């Protein structure tokens, strides 16, 4: 009897100590932050991009879907703004008129993405009318697409990689916001 009791007490005490040494909150014991990211990203068309984008933000551990949507739009905004800067810089040095034209079109699209699509998505998610967020993110993806198509007959597509990320990340954000409907 004593042995059982001591064993039980030992067990409890051990757990308590272990637990008190790890920084946790009630949230994470229910389902870890990492799990939420993975489950949510499974519902998007670009799982790996989704996971790396969300996890790169410390807020993602312990975030709910709305929180992940907000992190996603923040990442998208950063990426799109950086790509726009890239385009502007390239425009300054471009000599080929066809290249200039394609870049100018992309600048227009990216202006739209940064100035309108993303703010709409952010507002829709924070205020709770997610359908407009889906639309905003989808439009961003379409605009990135349109930018890419402008380079179809060009020998070089200098912003290929960033444009693809913006497109794919927009699609990811659209899927996440969709979950809030």
């Amino acid at each position, binding site marked *: 009897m*004593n*042995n059982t*009791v*001591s064993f039980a*007490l*030992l067990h*409890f*005490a*051990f*757990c*308590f*100590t*272990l637990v008190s*040494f790890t920084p946790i909150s*009630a*949230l994470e*014991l*229910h*389902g870890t932050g990492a799990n*939420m990211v993975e*489950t949510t990203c499974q*519902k998007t*068309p670009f799982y790996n991009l989704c996971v790396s984008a969300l996890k790169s933000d410390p807020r993602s551990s*312990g*975030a*709910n*879907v*709305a*929180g992940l949507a907000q992190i996603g739009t923040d990442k998208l905004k950063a990426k799109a703004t950086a790509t726009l800067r890239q385009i502007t810089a390239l425009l300054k040095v471009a000599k080929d008129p066809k290249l200039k034209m394609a870049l100018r*079109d992309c600048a227009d*699209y990216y202006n*739209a993405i940064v100035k*309108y*699509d993303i*703010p*709409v998505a952010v*507002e*829709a998610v*924070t*205020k*709770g*009318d*997610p*359908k407009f967020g*889906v*639309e*905003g993110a*989808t*439009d961003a993806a*379409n*605009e990135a697409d*349109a930018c890419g*198509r402008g380079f179809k*007959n060009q020998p070089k597509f200098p912003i290929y990689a960033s444009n693809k990320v913006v497109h794919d990340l927009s*699609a990811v954000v*659209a*899927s996440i916001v*969709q*979950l809030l*409907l």
Partner: protein
Amino acid sequence: MVDTRPFLPVSSHAGSDPTGPSENRRKPMKLQLSIFFVLLTVGFFAALLTSNNGSDNGFVKENEHGSLASPSSEKQLRPVSRGPAVGVSEKSNRLFAKDNENQLAYPWNNSMLSWQRTAFHFQPEKNWMNDPNGPLFYKGWYHFFYQYNPHAAVWGDIVWGHAVSKDLIHWLHLPLAMVADQWYDKNGVWTGSATILPDGKVVMLYTGSTTENVQVQNLAYPADHSDPLLINWVKYSGNPVLVPPPGILDKDFRDPTTAWLTSEGKWRITIGSKINKTGIALVYDTKDFINYELLDGVLHAVPRTGMWECVDFFPVSKTEENGLDTSVNGPSVKHVVKASLDDDRHDYYSIGTYHEKNGTWIPDEPKIDVGIGLRYDYGIYYAAKTFYDQNKNRRVLWGWIGESDSEAADMQKGWASVQSIPRTILFDKKIGTHLLQWPVEEIESLRLKSYEFNQVKVQAGSVVPLDVGPATQLDIIAEFEIDKEALEKTTGSNVTFSCSSSGGTIERGALGPFGLLVLADDSLSEQTPVYFYIAKGSDGKLKTFFCNDQSRSSVASDVNKRIYGNLVPVLEGEKLSLRVLVDHSIVESFAQGGRTVITSRVYPTKAIYGAAKLFLFNNATEASVSASLRIWQMNSAFIRPYPNNKESQ
């Protein structure tokens, strides 16, 4: 590795106690400590466990609400397999669609874009509009309010726009009625409805998105009831009057309806929401629009329909050809429940019976319950709202028509969205399950020159031009008769037809498609067909479909290219009838007196201004059709700001 030895009770077994007999004297102290820590641990785990059930913690709630819990949720986004019927806004249809031509997004120029503005549909001078709000008739004026973004041609910063009209057609813009100036609507002055009290006074209930992004209901009323223009509005000092009740999430509580009277003399309203993925309509009773009592249960609920936005609830007469005040009830009355489904951006309605005592409603045909059956409109049409027009004893329906071009084009042209022409709503006595919608008669005041065509024969596989002069502002009423012999001779088949999955007008059947080509250029490189398609089953039964093919309306690649439509019931002896309102980038079409309606937005690049023409077409393989039409040129409604010198019109 943590040293747990201090917490261990000293064993009384001589053999297992390594520290020897000297420990025995410290036993009671150690035991007490151990018990203390055990209780701590137990308490700790207990706290953890209970916090997982129903805490205010958003993360945990999200899990409980099932929107994430089921990995097999049908809302998974997959690039190519997504059909138009499932989920998202129509714009996402283009997300992964292949483009036929290796083209850029279309280089829209100002001429093309400015053509898109409508001549007689309500729209503000610029920027974004969405839901219709609080429509009513008051002291000689029809009032229309709407969700408006004063800053951009996209959704955001929403406030209430306002306009008035004597006839629901000629609108005059007034100053904004309500802006986001209180903590309870700082993040959005959203949709609401008006109730006219027996003494003629008006109260408005609307949803506010608070500084904390919680959706609440607020009360507002005119600052001056003697002002027929109702320019200034006052928000009740004790707002909000309703906050999300227990079990309802902060962001699932919006769009209060017009109130109706109960037999106890209380006012009753309904507000849409959802629980997990079940769409519901909550019911509240009130005596003063300030204090409310939430009824047990809901007006109605339908599983798997998601959030119900802009719920509407109203009576229709089974026998009379007029509208009914929202409070009317009785044996010759049916009640309609309507919801805008957030999940698929469509408006659904169902006809049924209202049980006043417990505030519930049961559909007549559960198979076509709210959200799974009939739609007001099979095109682009959302957030619709009716009001009882006591001026002409009719029930009038407003609906928001968004854009189906790119957001970039919207920004370039500086505006987005129009409202449909207001429609009267009547119960379709002949069918029993449908409502009939028809443009309000006042639209006929816009008719100018008319053209008549009698029994024009259109052979199988042919196109007939209709010379009506300019073809961008038209009111067309047409009747079609299909060759009876072909109807009988054609062999039926098991193949099922649907407008949206068909190939549009290039898919030829024995008995269809045939109808009109609107906004078409001479070479038909751009055309918007509005048509019927008759399918004969293997049992010989005929089914008539009514469709609108947007896919060839424009050579631009960055516009939606869908084929809208649905089955339209046609009774024995009925001719196929069609009414089409063409107004630049909007086409509203009504089949069989409004039994099935389709609104679509089109953005031609060539079939604009004088180049836009009208044709009859018949792409059936076996049947010829004959058409009789009356077509009117339509005047502009000259929608503009209310003149400063205070003269009307």
